[in-house]
Protein backbone atom coordinates (compact mmCIF):
# COMPACT_ATOMS: atom_id res chain seq x y z
CA UNK A 1 0.00 0.00 0.00
CA UNK A 2 1.23 3.50 -0.79
CA UNK A 3 2.02 5.87 2.02
CA UNK A 4 -0.10 8.74 0.75
CA UNK A 5 0.95 11.03 3.58
CA UNK A 6 4.59 10.69 2.52
CA UNK A 7 3.64 11.09 -1.11
CA UNK A 8 1.82 14.33 -0.31
CA UNK A 9 5.12 15.81 0.82
CA UNK A 10 6.46 15.29 -2.73
CA UNK A 11 3.91 17.78 -4.11
CA UNK A 12 4.73 21.36 -3.10
CA UNK A 13 1.32 22.74 -4.10
CA UNK A 14 -0.47 20.52 -1.60
CA UNK A 15 0.89 22.59 1.26
CA UNK A 16 -0.67 25.75 -0.23
CA UNK A 17 -3.85 27.22 1.11
CA UNK A 18 -6.78 28.24 -1.04
CA UNK A 19 -9.55 30.55 0.14
CA UNK A 20 -7.71 30.56 3.46
CA UNK A 21 -8.20 26.81 3.89
CA UNK A 22 -5.80 23.89 3.34
CA UNK A 23 -6.09 22.76 -0.28
CA UNK A 24 -7.96 19.52 -0.86
CA UNK A 25 -7.28 18.85 -4.52
CA UNK A 26 -9.82 16.50 -6.10
CA UNK A 27 -9.54 17.42 -9.78
CA UNK A 28 -6.66 15.27 -10.99
CA UNK A 29 -8.78 13.81 -13.78
CA UNK A 30 -8.65 17.30 -15.33
CA UNK A 31 -4.94 17.76 -14.62
CA UNK A 32 -2.72 16.32 -11.93
CA UNK A 33 -0.37 18.18 -9.64
CA UNK A 34 3.41 17.85 -10.10
CA UNK A 35 5.93 16.32 -7.71
CA UNK A 36 9.09 18.25 -6.86
CA UNK A 37 11.12 15.67 -8.82
CA UNK A 38 9.42 16.79 -12.07
CA UNK A 39 9.71 20.50 -11.27
CA UNK A 40 13.38 20.09 -10.38
CA UNK A 41 14.18 18.07 -13.50
CA UNK A 42 12.62 20.76 -15.67
CA UNK A 43 14.28 23.59 -13.76
CA UNK A 44 17.66 21.85 -14.02
CA UNK A 45 17.13 21.30 -17.74
CA UNK A 46 16.56 25.02 -18.34
CA UNK A 47 19.38 26.03 -16.02
CA UNK A 48 22.12 23.62 -17.00
CA UNK A 49 21.58 21.78 -20.26
CA UNK A 50 19.13 23.68 -22.44
CA UNK A 51 19.57 24.04 -26.19
CA UNK A 52 17.57 22.99 -29.21
CA UNK A 53 17.61 19.28 -29.91
CA UNK A 54 18.59 17.22 -32.97
CA UNK A 55 20.39 20.22 -34.50
CA UNK A 56 23.39 21.53 -32.68
CA UNK A 57 26.76 19.84 -32.96
CA UNK A 58 27.89 21.48 -29.75
CA UNK A 59 27.94 19.61 -26.47
CA UNK A 60 25.02 21.46 -24.89
CA UNK A 61 22.64 20.55 -27.72
CA UNK A 62 23.85 16.97 -27.67
CA UNK A 63 23.18 16.80 -23.97
CA UNK A 64 19.67 18.27 -24.34
CA UNK A 65 18.99 15.80 -27.15
CA UNK A 66 20.16 12.92 -25.01
CA UNK A 67 17.87 13.88 -22.11
CA UNK A 68 14.91 14.47 -24.41
CA UNK A 69 15.37 11.16 -26.20
CA UNK A 70 15.93 9.37 -22.89
CA UNK A 71 12.44 10.49 -21.96
CA UNK A 72 11.17 8.66 -25.04
CA UNK A 73 12.95 5.51 -23.87
CA UNK A 74 11.33 5.86 -20.45
CA UNK A 75 7.86 6.20 -22.01
CA UNK A 76 8.58 3.25 -24.31
CA UNK A 77 9.36 1.05 -21.32
CA UNK A 78 6.49 2.50 -19.27
CA UNK A 79 3.85 1.31 -21.76
CA UNK A 80 5.97 -1.64 -22.93
CA UNK A 81 6.03 -0.54 -26.56
CA UNK A 82 8.09 -2.84 -28.79
CA UNK A 83 10.34 -0.03 -29.96
CA UNK A 84 11.06 3.66 -29.28
CA UNK A 85 10.13 4.43 -32.90
CA UNK A 86 6.54 3.72 -31.90
CA UNK A 87 6.43 6.53 -29.35
CA UNK A 88 5.56 9.90 -30.90
CA UNK A 89 5.61 13.05 -28.80
CA UNK A 90 2.64 15.31 -29.43
CA UNK A 91 1.07 18.21 -27.56
CA UNK A 92 -1.46 16.11 -25.64
CA UNK A 93 -3.85 13.16 -26.02
CA UNK A 94 -6.20 15.34 -28.09
CA UNK A 95 -3.47 16.08 -30.61
CA UNK A 96 -2.49 12.40 -30.65
CA UNK A 97 -6.04 11.41 -31.62
CA UNK A 98 -6.24 14.18 -34.21
CA UNK A 99 -2.92 13.01 -35.64
CA UNK A 100 -4.42 9.55 -36.20
CA UNK A 101 -7.63 10.99 -37.67
CA UNK A 102 -5.65 13.19 -40.05
CA UNK A 103 -2.68 11.09 -41.07
CA UNK A 104 -4.18 7.59 -40.84
CA UNK A 105 -7.93 8.14 -41.16
CA UNK A 106 -8.05 10.23 -44.31
CA UNK A 107 -6.25 7.50 -46.24
CA UNK A 108 -7.80 4.50 -44.57
CA UNK A 109 -11.48 5.47 -44.60
CA UNK A 110 -14.00 6.05 -47.35
CA UNK A 111 -17.75 6.08 -48.01
CA UNK A 112 -19.48 3.03 -46.54
CA UNK A 113 -16.78 2.49 -43.93
CA UNK A 114 -17.61 2.81 -40.28
CA UNK A 115 -15.96 4.27 -37.20
CA UNK A 116 -17.14 2.77 -33.92
CA UNK A 117 -16.75 4.81 -30.74
CA UNK A 118 -18.67 4.48 -27.45
CA UNK A 119 -21.23 6.60 -25.61
CA UNK A 120 -18.81 7.23 -22.75
CA UNK A 121 -16.12 9.05 -24.74
CA UNK A 122 -14.56 12.40 -23.99
CA UNK A 123 -15.18 15.01 -26.71
CA UNK A 124 -11.58 14.52 -27.84
CA UNK A 125 -12.43 10.96 -28.84
CA UNK A 126 -15.64 12.02 -30.62
CA UNK A 127 -15.12 15.27 -32.46
CA UNK A 128 -12.01 14.21 -34.47
CA UNK A 129 -14.05 11.24 -35.73
CA UNK A 130 -17.00 13.47 -36.60
CA UNK A 131 -14.66 15.61 -38.68
CA UNK A 132 -13.11 12.53 -40.26
CA UNK A 133 -16.53 11.04 -41.04
CA UNK A 134 -17.64 14.29 -42.68
CA UNK A 135 -14.52 14.41 -44.77
CA UNK A 136 -14.39 10.77 -45.89
CA UNK A 137 -18.07 9.86 -46.03
CA UNK A 138 -17.56 7.21 -43.36
CA UNK A 139 -20.29 6.66 -40.78
CA UNK A 140 -19.71 7.23 -37.06
CA UNK A 141 -21.54 4.84 -34.75
CA UNK A 142 -21.53 4.30 -31.01
CA UNK A 143 -21.41 1.30 -28.73
CA UNK A 144 -24.11 2.03 -26.11
CA UNK A 145 -23.61 1.96 -22.37
CA UNK A 146 -25.77 0.37 -19.68
CA UNK A 147 -27.68 2.46 -17.15
CA UNK A 148 -24.96 1.49 -14.69
CA UNK A 149 -22.39 3.21 -16.90
CA UNK A 150 -20.60 0.24 -18.42
CA UNK A 151 -20.13 -0.67 -22.06
CA UNK A 152 -22.84 -2.93 -23.49
CA UNK A 153 -20.45 -5.58 -24.69
CA UNK A 154 -23.28 -7.81 -25.93
CA UNK A 155 -24.09 -5.10 -28.50
CA UNK A 156 -20.54 -5.30 -29.84
CA UNK A 157 -21.19 -8.32 -32.06
CA UNK A 158 -24.02 -6.51 -33.84
CA UNK A 159 -21.97 -3.38 -34.34
CA UNK A 160 -18.67 -4.98 -35.32
CA UNK A 161 -18.43 -6.18 -38.90
CA UNK A 162 -15.96 -5.77 -41.73
CA UNK A 163 -17.33 -2.28 -42.46
CA UNK A 164 -15.82 -1.06 -39.17
CA UNK A 165 -12.38 0.23 -40.08
CA UNK A 166 -11.69 1.94 -36.77
CA UNK A 167 -12.74 1.28 -33.21
CA UNK A 168 -11.93 4.10 -30.76
CA UNK A 169 -12.66 3.83 -27.05
CA UNK A 170 -11.43 4.91 -23.67
CA UNK A 171 -9.50 2.83 -21.20
CA UNK A 172 -11.19 4.69 -18.34
CA UNK A 173 -14.16 7.03 -18.46
CA UNK A 174 -13.36 10.52 -17.20
CA UNK A 175 -16.89 10.81 -15.78
CA UNK A 176 -18.04 7.34 -14.76
CA UNK A 177 -14.61 6.09 -13.72
CA UNK A 178 -15.46 2.88 -15.58
CA UNK A 179 -12.43 0.80 -16.52
CA UNK A 180 -13.25 -0.84 -19.83
CA UNK A 181 -12.34 -4.46 -20.70
CA UNK A 182 -9.91 -3.07 -23.24
CA UNK A 183 -8.00 -6.21 -24.24
CA UNK A 184 -11.25 -8.04 -24.99
CA UNK A 185 -12.61 -5.15 -27.08
CA UNK A 186 -9.32 -4.92 -29.00
CA UNK A 187 -9.42 -8.66 -29.70
CA UNK A 188 -13.01 -8.55 -30.95
CA UNK A 189 -12.41 -5.44 -33.08
CA UNK A 190 -9.29 -7.00 -34.58
CA UNK A 191 -11.30 -10.12 -35.44
CA UNK A 192 -13.27 -8.06 -38.00
CA UNK A 193 -10.14 -6.33 -39.25
CA UNK A 194 -10.67 -2.98 -37.52
CA UNK A 195 -7.78 -0.78 -36.42
CA UNK A 196 -8.09 0.10 -32.74
CA UNK A 197 -7.29 3.36 -30.98
CA UNK A 198 -7.40 3.44 -27.20
CA UNK A 199 -7.82 6.77 -25.43
CA UNK A 200 -5.49 6.41 -22.47
CA UNK A 201 -5.80 9.97 -21.15
CA UNK A 202 -7.44 8.72 -17.93
CA UNK A 203 -6.17 5.14 -17.95
CA UNK A 204 -2.43 5.56 -18.41
CA UNK A 205 -1.89 7.81 -15.36
CA UNK A 206 -3.77 5.43 -13.08
CA UNK A 207 -3.36 1.85 -14.32
CA UNK A 208 -0.48 -0.35 -15.43
CA UNK A 209 -0.65 -0.33 -19.25
CA UNK A 210 1.17 -2.72 -21.55
CA UNK A 211 0.40 -1.93 -25.19
CA UNK A 212 1.64 -5.30 -26.39
CA UNK A 213 -0.61 -7.18 -23.97
CA UNK A 214 -3.46 -4.79 -24.80
CA UNK A 215 -2.85 -5.34 -28.49
CA UNK A 216 -4.11 -1.89 -29.54
CA UNK A 217 -2.85 -0.19 -32.70
CA UNK A 218 -2.81 3.31 -31.23
CA UNK A 219 -2.76 4.65 -27.67
CA UNK A 220 -3.09 8.35 -26.85
CA UNK A 221 -2.29 10.05 -23.54
CA UNK A 222 -1.18 13.33 -21.97
CA UNK A 223 1.71 14.00 -19.61
CA UNK A 224 -0.15 16.56 -17.53
CA UNK A 225 -2.58 14.04 -16.09
CA UNK A 226 0.28 11.77 -14.94
CA UNK A 227 2.36 14.14 -12.80
CA UNK A 228 4.10 15.59 -15.86
CA UNK A 229 3.92 19.04 -17.44
CA UNK A 230 1.35 20.44 -19.85
CA UNK A 231 2.32 20.79 -23.51
CA UNK A 232 3.45 17.24 -24.16
CA UNK A 233 1.49 14.10 -24.91
CA UNK A 234 2.14 10.74 -26.47
CA UNK A 235 0.88 8.80 -29.43
CA UNK A 236 1.87 5.16 -29.39
CA UNK A 237 1.35 3.53 -32.78
CA UNK A 238 2.31 0.20 -34.23
CA UNK A 239 5.36 0.69 -36.39
CA UNK A 240 3.86 -0.73 -39.59
CA UNK A 241 0.92 1.69 -39.36
CA UNK A 242 3.11 4.69 -38.56
CA UNK A 243 5.45 3.89 -41.43
CA UNK A 244 2.58 3.77 -43.91
CA UNK A 245 1.10 7.05 -42.69
CA UNK A 246 1.92 10.40 -44.29
CA UNK A 247 3.21 13.16 -41.97
CA UNK A 248 0.84 15.15 -39.78
CA UNK A 249 2.56 18.52 -39.65
CA UNK A 250 5.24 19.69 -42.06
CA UNK A 251 8.31 21.64 -41.00
CA UNK A 252 11.75 21.31 -39.54
CA UNK A 253 13.02 18.11 -37.97
CA UNK A 254 10.44 15.89 -39.67
CA UNK A 255 12.27 15.84 -42.99
CA UNK A 256 15.24 14.02 -44.42
CA UNK A 257 15.79 16.21 -47.45
CA UNK A 258 13.92 19.22 -48.79
CA UNK A 259 14.02 20.57 -52.33
CA UNK A 260 11.95 23.47 -53.60
CA UNK A 261 9.08 21.29 -54.74
CA UNK A 262 9.38 18.10 -52.72
CA UNK A 263 10.67 16.60 -49.54
CA UNK A 264 11.34 13.20 -48.04
CA UNK A 265 10.48 12.30 -44.49
CA UNK A 266 12.61 11.65 -41.48
CA UNK A 267 12.58 8.25 -39.80
CA UNK A 268 10.14 7.35 -37.06
CA UNK A 269 9.39 8.78 -34.58
CA UNK A 270 10.58 12.19 -35.81
CA UNK A 271 8.51 12.02 -39.02
CA UNK A 272 5.58 13.11 -36.84
CA UNK A 273 7.44 15.70 -34.78
CA UNK A 274 7.70 18.85 -36.88
CA UNK A 275 9.29 21.96 -35.45
CA UNK A 276 11.11 22.45 -32.17
CA UNK A 277 9.51 19.96 -29.82
CA UNK A 278 8.54 20.55 -26.18
CA UNK A 279 12.07 19.72 -25.06
CA UNK A 280 11.93 20.49 -21.38
CA UNK A 281 8.37 19.16 -21.16
CA UNK A 282 9.71 15.91 -22.58
CA UNK A 283 12.35 15.83 -19.87
CA UNK A 284 9.59 16.55 -17.33
CA UNK A 285 7.53 13.68 -18.71
CA UNK A 286 10.54 11.39 -18.31
CA UNK A 287 10.87 12.49 -14.67
CA UNK A 288 7.14 11.88 -14.15
CA UNK A 289 7.48 8.34 -15.52
CA UNK A 290 10.42 7.76 -13.16
CA UNK A 291 8.31 9.05 -10.28
CA UNK A 292 5.31 6.84 -11.10
CA UNK A 293 7.60 3.83 -11.57
CA UNK A 294 9.13 4.46 -8.15
CA UNK A 295 5.68 4.27 -6.59
CA UNK A 296 4.67 1.39 -8.87
CA UNK A 297 1.62 1.47 -11.12
CA UNK A 298 0.05 -1.56 -9.42
CA UNK A 299 0.37 0.16 -6.04
CA UNK A 300 -1.05 3.40 -7.48
CA UNK A 301 -4.07 1.57 -8.92
CA UNK A 302 -4.65 -0.27 -5.63
CA UNK A 303 -4.38 2.94 -3.62
CA UNK A 304 -6.89 4.71 -5.85
CA UNK A 305 -9.31 1.80 -5.73
CA UNK A 306 -9.14 1.84 -1.97
CA UNK A 307 -9.56 5.60 -1.70
CA UNK A 308 -12.40 5.64 -4.23
CA UNK A 309 -14.20 2.79 -2.49
CA UNK A 310 -13.96 4.64 0.82
CA UNK A 311 -15.09 7.93 -0.78
CA UNK A 312 -18.06 6.21 -2.43
CA UNK A 313 -19.12 4.79 0.94
CA UNK A 314 -18.85 8.19 2.59
CA UNK A 315 -20.67 10.03 -0.18
CA UNK A 316 -23.43 7.45 -0.65
CA UNK A 317 -24.33 7.89 3.00
CA UNK A 318 -25.36 11.51 2.34
CA UNK A 319 -29.11 11.87 1.75
CA UNK A 320 -29.86 12.97 -1.81
CA UNK A 321 -26.42 12.12 -3.17
CA UNK A 322 -26.36 9.98 -6.29
CA UNK A 323 -23.14 8.63 -7.81
CA UNK A 324 -23.09 7.86 -11.53
CA UNK A 325 -21.18 4.87 -12.86
CA UNK A 326 -20.35 1.35 -11.76
CA UNK A 327 -19.44 -0.01 -8.31
CA UNK A 328 -16.01 0.67 -6.84
CA UNK A 329 -14.44 -2.62 -7.95
CA UNK A 330 -14.91 -1.76 -11.62
CA UNK A 331 -13.75 1.84 -11.64
CA UNK A 332 -10.78 4.08 -11.05
CA UNK A 333 -10.58 7.08 -8.76
CA UNK A 334 -13.17 9.20 -10.60
CA UNK A 335 -16.48 9.85 -8.83
CA UNK A 336 -19.11 12.03 -10.52
CA UNK A 337 -22.33 12.67 -8.67
CA UNK A 338 -25.40 14.81 -8.19
CA UNK A 339 -26.38 16.12 -4.76
CA UNK A 340 -30.00 16.98 -4.00
CA UNK A 341 -31.13 19.62 -6.48
CA UNK A 342 -27.97 21.64 -5.98
CA UNK A 343 -26.54 22.78 -9.29
CA UNK A 344 -22.99 21.43 -9.79
CA UNK A 345 -21.66 24.95 -10.35
CA UNK A 346 -23.06 26.12 -7.03
CA UNK A 347 -21.78 23.00 -5.33
CA UNK A 348 -18.25 23.32 -6.72
CA UNK A 349 -18.20 27.03 -5.93
CA UNK A 350 -19.29 26.46 -2.33
CA UNK A 351 -16.88 23.55 -1.83
CA UNK A 352 -14.12 25.82 -3.09
CA UNK A 353 -14.81 28.23 -0.26
CA UNK A 354 -13.99 25.24 2.00
CA UNK A 355 -10.69 24.70 0.14
CA UNK A 356 -11.99 21.71 -1.81
CA UNK A 357 -11.31 21.75 -5.57
CA UNK A 358 -13.74 19.63 -7.61
CA UNK A 359 -14.91 19.89 -11.21
CA UNK A 360 -18.46 20.83 -12.20
CA UNK A 361 -20.11 20.60 -15.59
CA UNK A 362 -20.19 18.00 -18.34
CA UNK A 363 -16.44 17.30 -18.13
CA UNK A 364 -16.14 17.37 -21.95
CA UNK A 365 -18.57 14.46 -22.22
CA UNK A 366 -21.87 16.04 -23.27
CA UNK A 367 -23.21 13.01 -25.16
CA UNK A 368 -22.58 10.87 -22.06
CA UNK A 369 -24.43 13.34 -19.83
CA UNK A 370 -27.31 13.40 -22.32
CA UNK A 371 -27.39 9.59 -22.16
CA UNK A 372 -27.49 9.79 -18.36
CA UNK A 373 -30.29 12.37 -18.56
CA UNK A 374 -28.20 15.00 -16.80
CA UNK A 375 -27.01 18.45 -17.77
CA UNK A 376 -24.06 18.39 -15.48
CA UNK A 377 -22.45 16.57 -12.59
CA UNK A 378 -19.94 17.37 -9.88
CA UNK A 379 -16.78 15.28 -10.11
CA UNK A 380 -14.23 14.41 -7.45
CA UNK A 381 -11.17 12.60 -8.78
CA UNK A 382 -8.46 10.98 -6.68
CA UNK A 383 -4.80 10.37 -7.40
CA UNK A 384 -1.65 9.16 -5.65
CA UNK A 385 -1.60 12.07 -3.22
CA UNK A 386 -5.22 11.83 -2.10
CA UNK A 387 -6.09 10.13 1.15
CA UNK A 388 -9.16 8.88 2.96
CA UNK A 389 -8.96 12.13 4.92
CA UNK A 390 -9.60 14.01 1.65
CA UNK A 391 -12.75 11.94 1.15
CA UNK A 392 -13.79 12.80 4.71
CA UNK A 393 -13.24 16.49 4.02
CA UNK A 394 -15.32 16.23 0.85
CA UNK A 395 -18.18 14.53 2.68
CA UNK A 396 -18.03 17.16 5.45
CA UNK A 397 -17.92 19.91 2.83
CA UNK A 398 -21.02 18.54 1.14
CA UNK A 399 -22.84 18.39 4.48
CA UNK A 400 -21.79 21.96 5.14
CA UNK A 401 -23.14 23.11 1.75
CA UNK A 402 -26.41 21.27 2.31
CA UNK A 403 -26.74 22.92 5.70
CA UNK A 404 -25.83 26.34 4.36
CA UNK A 405 -28.29 26.29 1.51
CA UNK A 406 -30.89 24.89 3.87
CA UNK A 407 -34.28 25.00 2.28
CA UNK A 408 -33.09 27.14 -0.64
CA UNK A 409 -32.36 24.00 -2.68
Amino acid at each position, binding site marked *: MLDAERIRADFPILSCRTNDKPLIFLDSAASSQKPAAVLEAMDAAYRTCYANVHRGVYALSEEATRYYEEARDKVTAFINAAAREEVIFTRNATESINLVAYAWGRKALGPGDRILATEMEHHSNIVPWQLLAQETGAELRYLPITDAGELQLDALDDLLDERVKLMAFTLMSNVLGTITPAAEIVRRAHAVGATVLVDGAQGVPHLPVDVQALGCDFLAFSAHKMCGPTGIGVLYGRRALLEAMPPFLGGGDMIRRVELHRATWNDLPWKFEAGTPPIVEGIGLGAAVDYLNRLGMDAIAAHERDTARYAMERLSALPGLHIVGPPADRRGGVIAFTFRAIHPHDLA*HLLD*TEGIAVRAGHHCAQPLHARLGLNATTRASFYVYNTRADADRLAEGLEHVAHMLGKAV
Partner: protein
Amino acid sequence: MTPSPYRERILDHYQRPRHRGSLEAPLAVGEIDNPVCGDQVRIAVRLDADERVTAAFDGEGCILSMAAASMLAEHVQGRPLSDVRALTDQDILDLMEVELGPVRVKCALLPLRALQAALEELEDR
Protein backbone atom coordinates in the same frame (compact mmCIF):
# COMPACT_ATOMS: atom_id res chain seq x y z
CA MET B 1 -10.36 36.29 -0.23
CA THR B 2 -13.42 37.08 -2.36
CA PRO B 3 -16.60 37.09 -0.28
CA SER B 4 -18.98 34.25 -1.10
CA PRO B 5 -21.77 35.34 -3.42
CA TYR B 6 -24.12 32.93 -1.67
CA ARG B 7 -25.55 35.53 0.68
CA GLU B 8 -29.06 35.78 2.03
CA ARG B 9 -30.23 38.24 -0.60
CA ILE B 10 -29.09 36.01 -3.48
CA LEU B 11 -30.56 32.89 -1.90
CA ASP B 12 -33.80 34.75 -1.31
CA HIS B 13 -34.10 35.66 -5.00
CA TYR B 14 -33.33 32.04 -5.89
CA GLN B 15 -35.97 30.70 -3.49
CA ARG B 16 -38.62 33.33 -4.16
CA PRO B 17 -37.96 34.46 -7.73
CA ARG B 18 -39.58 37.78 -8.76
CA HIS B 19 -41.32 38.02 -12.12
CA ARG B 20 -40.85 34.37 -12.94
CA GLY B 21 -43.21 32.82 -15.44
CA SER B 22 -44.62 33.76 -18.80
CA LEU B 23 -45.77 37.16 -19.96
CA GLU B 24 -49.05 37.78 -21.66
CA ALA B 25 -48.64 39.05 -25.24
CA PRO B 26 -44.87 39.55 -25.18
CA LEU B 27 -43.33 41.74 -27.86
CA ALA B 28 -40.11 39.76 -27.85
CA VAL B 29 -38.58 36.74 -26.13
CA GLY B 30 -34.84 36.24 -25.70
CA GLU B 31 -33.46 32.82 -24.89
CA ILE B 32 -29.91 31.84 -24.11
CA ASP B 33 -27.99 28.70 -23.07
CA ASN B 34 -24.81 28.25 -21.12
CA PRO B 35 -23.25 25.33 -22.98
CA VAL B 36 -20.89 24.61 -20.09
CA CYS B 37 -23.66 23.51 -17.73
CA GLY B 38 -26.81 23.33 -19.85
CA ASP B 39 -28.44 26.26 -18.06
CA GLN B 40 -31.16 28.11 -19.93
CA VAL B 41 -32.76 31.49 -19.39
CA ARG B 42 -35.70 32.98 -21.27
CA ILE B 43 -36.79 36.58 -20.85
CA ALA B 44 -40.01 37.92 -22.32
CA VAL B 45 -40.45 41.66 -22.79
CA ARG B 46 -43.43 43.95 -23.38
CA LEU B 47 -43.56 47.74 -23.69
CA ASP B 48 -46.33 50.02 -22.47
CA ALA B 49 -47.50 53.20 -24.23
CA ASP B 50 -44.58 55.36 -23.08
CA GLU B 51 -41.94 52.74 -23.88
CA ARG B 52 -41.61 51.40 -20.37
CA VAL B 53 -40.56 47.77 -19.90
CA THR B 54 -42.46 44.84 -18.43
CA ALA B 55 -40.42 41.63 -18.25
CA ALA B 56 -40.72 38.06 -17.00
CA PHE B 57 -38.15 35.29 -16.96
CA ASP B 58 -38.19 31.55 -16.98
CA GLY B 59 -35.54 28.86 -17.13
CA GLU B 60 -33.38 26.44 -15.27
CA GLY B 61 -30.00 26.97 -13.79
CA CYS B 62 -27.69 27.48 -10.87
CA ILE B 63 -28.35 29.79 -7.96
CA LEU B 64 -26.34 32.62 -9.52
CA SER B 65 -28.04 32.55 -12.91
CA MET B 66 -31.52 32.25 -11.44
CA ALA B 67 -30.96 34.92 -8.78
CA ALA B 68 -29.47 37.19 -11.45
CA ALA B 69 -32.55 36.65 -13.63
CA SER B 70 -34.87 37.50 -10.75
CA MET B 71 -32.89 40.62 -9.80
CA LEU B 72 -32.64 41.75 -13.42
CA ALA B 73 -36.36 41.24 -14.03
CA GLU B 74 -37.14 43.22 -10.88
CA HIS B 75 -34.71 45.95 -11.85
CA VAL B 76 -36.13 46.55 -15.33
CA GLN B 77 -39.84 46.61 -14.44
CA GLY B 78 -41.33 49.93 -15.44
CA ARG B 79 -38.02 51.38 -16.57
CA PRO B 80 -37.71 53.29 -19.87
CA LEU B 81 -36.52 51.06 -22.71
CA SER B 82 -33.51 53.31 -23.28
CA ASP B 83 -32.29 52.69 -19.69
CA VAL B 84 -32.73 48.95 -20.09
CA ARG B 85 -30.81 48.98 -23.35
CA ALA B 86 -27.94 50.74 -21.63
CA LEU B 87 -27.45 48.02 -18.97
CA THR B 88 -23.87 46.71 -18.83
CA ASP B 89 -22.27 43.55 -17.46
CA GLN B 90 -20.95 45.53 -14.52
CA ASP B 91 -24.45 46.82 -13.76
CA ILE B 92 -25.55 43.22 -13.18
CA LEU B 93 -22.65 42.47 -10.83
CA ASP B 94 -23.37 45.74 -9.00
CA LEU B 95 -27.03 44.82 -8.75
CA MET B 96 -26.10 41.46 -7.27
CA GLU B 97 -23.29 42.95 -5.15
CA VAL B 98 -20.96 40.09 -6.09
CA GLU B 99 -17.46 39.64 -7.41
CA LEU B 100 -17.06 36.57 -9.62
CA GLY B 101 -14.30 34.72 -11.44
CA PRO B 102 -14.28 34.29 -15.22
CA VAL B 103 -16.32 31.04 -15.18
CA ARG B 104 -19.03 31.99 -12.70
CA VAL B 105 -19.45 35.46 -14.19
CA LYS B 106 -20.98 33.75 -17.24
CA CYS B 107 -23.68 32.30 -15.00
CA ALA B 108 -24.55 35.70 -13.59
CA LEU B 109 -24.60 37.33 -17.04
CA LEU B 110 -26.74 34.69 -18.72
CA PRO B 111 -30.01 36.56 -17.96
CA LEU B 112 -28.63 39.84 -19.33
CA ARG B 113 -27.64 38.01 -22.53
CA ALA B 114 -31.22 36.69 -22.80
CA LEU B 115 -32.59 40.18 -22.23
CA GLN B 116 -30.21 41.61 -24.84
CA ALA B 117 -31.40 38.96 -27.31
CA ALA B 118 -35.00 40.03 -26.62
CA LEU B 119 -34.10 43.69 -27.13
CA GLU B 120 -32.40 42.85 -30.41
CA GLU B 121 -35.57 41.12 -31.53
CA LEU B 122 -37.52 44.27 -30.58
CA GLU B 123 -35.21 46.34 -32.74
CA ASP B 124 -35.68 44.02 -35.72
CA ARG B 125 -39.41 44.29 -35.48
